[in-house]
């Protein structure tokens, strides 16, 4: 179909203008982190006169950023591994067997897709308190794992169902038991789905700040998003350092995204339009 040159240019203008709007604030954040406070306040839009890392040094000296970072890594990695293992086991059971309660069990997991888990925060807080997990990274791991299970079971069950039965039969004839069929035969075949589940839950766990806000008080136990909360609370006026904190917080995820942007975009939308 022919589109007039004028309409075409408008389309380009529209698309690229919003591309610019999407990126520019992030660009500004990174650039500002290399400027001095005086520079930021006098000329917020200009490029830095010289690239300085002073703000990063003072950030390092002011807050335990290394702790924040490793806490985030620990919480996200352990949560994702647990979600992958638990959900895959459950999905295998739901998709490859037909016990009479399987329909009910699947429905029970699906209910989780409708529940806004943050609304259970008061009982959850008291539960964590009873378990002695307040101020512990395990409180975050448990809630991330529990919250990630419904969508993950849903996605993985769908994938397990698509695999041909013959594979499984052949494996069983060769003497594989249930776990071997699961681990050695079927699991490698749903690797793309595992990737999707990994991405969805990793982003969720890495970026979450609601649960750390409620469960974690001590600075050295905070994840990056929670750490930003204390940074902004204490050093309101040191903009150069604040921008450095934001940049350092955003950078790991941006780098991972640039390395695998296609998988990220497909993964995050998979839950919605599968």
């Amino acid at each position, binding site marked *: 179909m022919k589109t007039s040159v004028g309409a075409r240019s408008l389309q380009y203008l529209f698309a690229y203008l919003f*591309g610019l709007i999407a990126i520019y604030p992030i660009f500004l954040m990174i650039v500002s982190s290399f400027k001095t406070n005086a520079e930021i306040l006098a000329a917020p839009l200009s490029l830095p006169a010289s690239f300085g890392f002073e703000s990063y040094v003072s950030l390092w000296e002011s807050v335990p950023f290394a702790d924040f970072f490793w806490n985030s890594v620990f919480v996200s990695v352990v949560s994702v591994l647990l979600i992958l293992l638990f959900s895959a086991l459950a999905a295998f059971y739901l998709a490859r067997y037909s016990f009479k309660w399987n329909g009910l069990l699947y429905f029970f997991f699906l209910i989780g897709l409708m529940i806004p888990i943050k609304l*259970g925060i008061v009982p959850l807080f008291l539960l964590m308190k009873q378990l002695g997990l307040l101020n512990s990274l395990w409180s975050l791991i448990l809630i991330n794992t529990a919250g990630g299970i419904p969508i993950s079971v849903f996605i993985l069950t769908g994938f397990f169902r698509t695999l041909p039965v013959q594979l499984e039969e052949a494996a069983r004839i060769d003497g594989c038991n249930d776990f071997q069929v699961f681990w050695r035969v079927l699991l490698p075949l749903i690797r793309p789905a595992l990737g999707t589940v990994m991405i969805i839950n990793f982003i969720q766990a890495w970026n979450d700040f609601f649960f750390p806000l409620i469960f974690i008080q001590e600075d050295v136990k905070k994840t990056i998003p929670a750490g930003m909360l204390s940074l902004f609370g204490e050093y309101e006026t040191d903009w150069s350092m604040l921008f450095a904190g934001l940049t350092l917080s955003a950078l790991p995820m941006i780098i991972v995204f640039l390395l695998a942007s296609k998988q990220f975009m497909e993964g995050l939308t998979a839950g919605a339009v*599968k």
Partner: protein
Amino acid sequence: MNHMQKATERAGRSKPRRRWLIHLFPLPALLVYAAFVIYPIFSAFTYSLYDWEGISRKGFAGFQNFVTLFTVEPFNEMFWNAIKHNLVYFIVEMVVQNGIAFGLAYVIYRKIRGSGVLKAAYFLPRLLSVIIVGFLWKLILNPNFGALNALLTHLGLEAWARPWLGDPNTALMTIILINCWFGIGFAVLIFLAGLQSIPEELVEAARLDGASGLTLLRKIILPLVMPSVTIMTILTFIQAFEAFELIYAMEGSQGEPFRSTDTLAVYFYRLAFGGPSGTGSVAIGLGSALSVILFFIVASVSAISVFLLRKKEIQH
């Protein structure tokens, strides 16, 4: 299913004593999920029916908490004020975020140079933690030293410069627009997936019949992307009624200025964890009652989405 049963039976015959082990497979997922998702929500329901003093439970109160929430000042006022903002949130997101996102998805669908880079660019903000988004924009929107007002001055639009987050007339809208900035890339991808699932032949046939761009869009494309529009509407609704983090990051638990950015979830947080000033101390009974109401608003709408997802699953 039949094949599978046979396979299971055959396996069962070969190792009869180990058969029960399979039932351990769903157990870890089930336990964690039941303990940390189902149990807390269920407890919130029961909490809402009791009197509370601080964090200790007193006598059974029936529906008194709900009655208080709707009839006693300032609780009822705050409720209606907050739910109104949730609705505004939903409507503005639908029009601005989803409207623009659909336009962008359509332009990409009609082929544009650099579409891969554009998609990634739109999506980039979605990767940031909401707290980072909130703090970053707070710096950008600072009335004295922020980049936005500097940019407006630069463009000769000084008159437009204002304390975006400090003015009750603009604060809510500003936050919603930032949320649009955050979520637009996701919406583009959802719409694009919908557009790309339209059979090529159908569009081609309509073109050969001489359908103009606009007719094509209205008669063929729009009806066929309705499923993705529905999904996006539901997701936007859920998001709008759960709106908390961005507001908390930018305007605190009071929904400043003058509660002009208060939403149900922020109000809930205030009741449950007793933000400074506000209604005073924690009110777990009232907070739980509010969470039950919010639960039913969100769950009823997301039940529709789960229903749609399952229907689609069956069709495949």
